[in-house]
């Protein structure tokens, strides 16, 4: 489908196709927290969009607002102290930030769903696995108990759990971590949401299970056309799973692009630093042992309030201009960089 329109080579047609395919559009999303009487900007003007069947990786270090972005999309920002202070989350023809809490509940699970980091604690210990999935189904669909349980068995089969008929009757503590995460995925996908947010879904699991879970997510995505937002601090995971990457720092989106663009042509000094911090496995460890590069300094304390570019204090290329907050420079094709370095650059002119 994409190919035929590309052959037409009509930019406008492509544009309209893109907008038709857009499942989720986030515009200038801001989240504020009130901490000790002071208002702190946890998320500042986050914008991105998701097309059908696409995977967006959100990457950044701890406390940069990755998880908060996810919670904001679900309208689950802890309140108090937080609230969505500005911006729009468009899904279909609805703006999620404006929905009533009652309407929002029907969106959660049905339109957007989320799986959490800790499969060990994200399942309710007092109910059987089948019960929990069935209850989720019954939240959104008109099913009786036994119908919902049969659907739960089907969902467990979708997430490739062996012998689902037996497993529906087991309690979460009887399962291994990988199994529990599969159950979480089954629960999140039970009502066929359009968008699945995976908040570090494999952090608590070992590497082989991690690969299995990613494969599973990919398969489900292909079969159902679900969009996935993958939140992680592991660029390896993003490279494996995602189509596009959004790099976050101190509540700002500082760079966005396809995985290849970010990997081969990172523009923001922070992204470059982040990629350099990725350990490579080298066979020859003996004499060429090197210290793993790091980004000097730490994440700024949002409580103190920031002026200018949030990365400036740690950036090797800081200049006078960095006292001003750079806008997100759009390089076209959903590629953007929030850094003065790209402004007026020949690169911008060429690509524009």
């Amino acid at each position, binding site marked *: 489908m994409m190919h035929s329109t590309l052959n037409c080579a009509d930019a406008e047609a492509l544009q309209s196709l893109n907008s038709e395919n857009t499942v989720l559009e986030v515009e200038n999303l801001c989240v504020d927290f009130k901490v000790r009487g002071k208002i702190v900007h946890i998320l500042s003007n986050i914008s991105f969009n998701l097309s059908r069947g696409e995977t967006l990786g959100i990457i950044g270090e701890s406390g940069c607002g990755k998880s908060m972005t996810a919670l904001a999309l679900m309208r689950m920002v802890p309140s108090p102290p937080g609230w969505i202070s500005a911006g729009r989350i468009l899904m279909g023809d609805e703006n999620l930030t404006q929905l009533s809490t009652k309407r929002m509940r029907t969106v*959660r*699970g049905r339109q957007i769903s989320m799986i*959490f980091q800790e499969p060990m604690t994200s399942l309710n210990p007092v109910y*059987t696995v*089948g019960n929990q999935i069935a209850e*989720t189904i019954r939240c959104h669909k008109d099913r009786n108990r036994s119908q919902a*349980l049969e659907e739960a068995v089907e969902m467990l089969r979708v997430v490739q759990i*062996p*012998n689902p008929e037996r497993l529906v009757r087991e309690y979460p503590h009887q399962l291994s971590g990988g199994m529990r995460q599969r159950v979480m995925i089954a629960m999140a996908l039970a009502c066929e949401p359009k968008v699945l947010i995976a908040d570090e879904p494999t952090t608590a699991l070992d590497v082989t299970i991690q690969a299995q879970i990613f494969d599973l997510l990919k398969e489900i995505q292909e079969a159902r056309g679900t969009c996935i937002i993958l939140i992680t601090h592991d660029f390896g995971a993003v490279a494996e799973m995602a189509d596009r990457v959004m790099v976050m720092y101190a509540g700002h989106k500082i760079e966005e692009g396809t995985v290849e663009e970010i990997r081969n042509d990172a523009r923001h000094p922070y992204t470059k630093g982040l990629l350099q911090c990725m350990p490579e496995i080298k066979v020859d460890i003996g004499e060429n042992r090197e210290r793993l590069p790091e980004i000097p300094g730490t994440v700024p304390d949002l409580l103190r309030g920031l002026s200018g570019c949030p990365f400036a204090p740690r950036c090797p290329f800081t200049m006078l201009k960095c006292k001003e907050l750079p806008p997100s420079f759009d390089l076209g094709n959903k590629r953007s960089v929030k850094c003065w370095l790209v402004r007026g650059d020949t690169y911008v002119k060429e690509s524009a």
Partner: protein
Amino acid sequence: MMKDTVGQKDLPAGFEEEAVKPEIWWVETVRMYYANKAAFIGLIGLLVIIFVGLFGPIVFQADPFQIKGAPLTRPGDIYLLGTDYLGRDVFSCIIYGARSTLAIAIVATAFTVLIGISLGALAGFYGGKVDNLLMRITEYFQVLPPLVFAMVLVAVFKPTLITVVFAIGVTTWTSLARLSRAEFLKIKEREFVMAARAVGARNMRLIMRILLPNALPPLIVAITLQIGMTIIYEAALSFLGLTDPDIMTWGKMIGLSRDFFFDAWWTVTFPGLAILITALCIALIGDGLNDAFNPKLRGR
């Protein structure tokens, strides 16, 4: 884990169909319960007491208020458990007292549980202003000495069965409210609550189906203790004469015979034992329920 489940994939078709049937959750709970001997004894004990309460007065048709013979006869002389200071049969008083004592204990505790857990759950779940308001109300009831408060309530209204139940219910719910609030506060931060919210659970569903079952174990223990407490409260009120004059309860028996404790120990000891055994049975049951509800202890 993976391997042994894969191995069982080739089961006969009939088995799989059977397995899909919704499980009946209480079957296993009951099975677990029977495995616990102390709890089982408690249950049998309480059933006997309830049976006596229900059918004793029918089988054993003797008015407990009727004067049978000489006052303060020793147990075993003419009457099994002797007579009290008016010459009433202690045994028939205990049989008749079982019904009213249990009725008061169960209804008053149900009342306590209803007020206590719902206020505590709302306060813990919603937090903030709701929590503040409900906890100030709870504190207001906490600072009043429950027995004095109950006495005032019974004295102001007519001392009937309903007033006694109401008075005990209204004065003793605070500790349950505190406990359930604390449990809800703790559990609502757990990830599975957030996960349930993320798939679209309503607040009421979160409270009733997600949080409450997880908060239940300590609450069940507290409730069973509360039943014992209620019996003792009722005894205290009866002891002070604040009770329905037409109803014989164990507490009332103790209260009325208090002056004869040193001369006729049987008039107080037997109703006291009845209270003790009932409270003990209920406590054992609570303990057993606590284990049976815990899915981690199941199937072991």
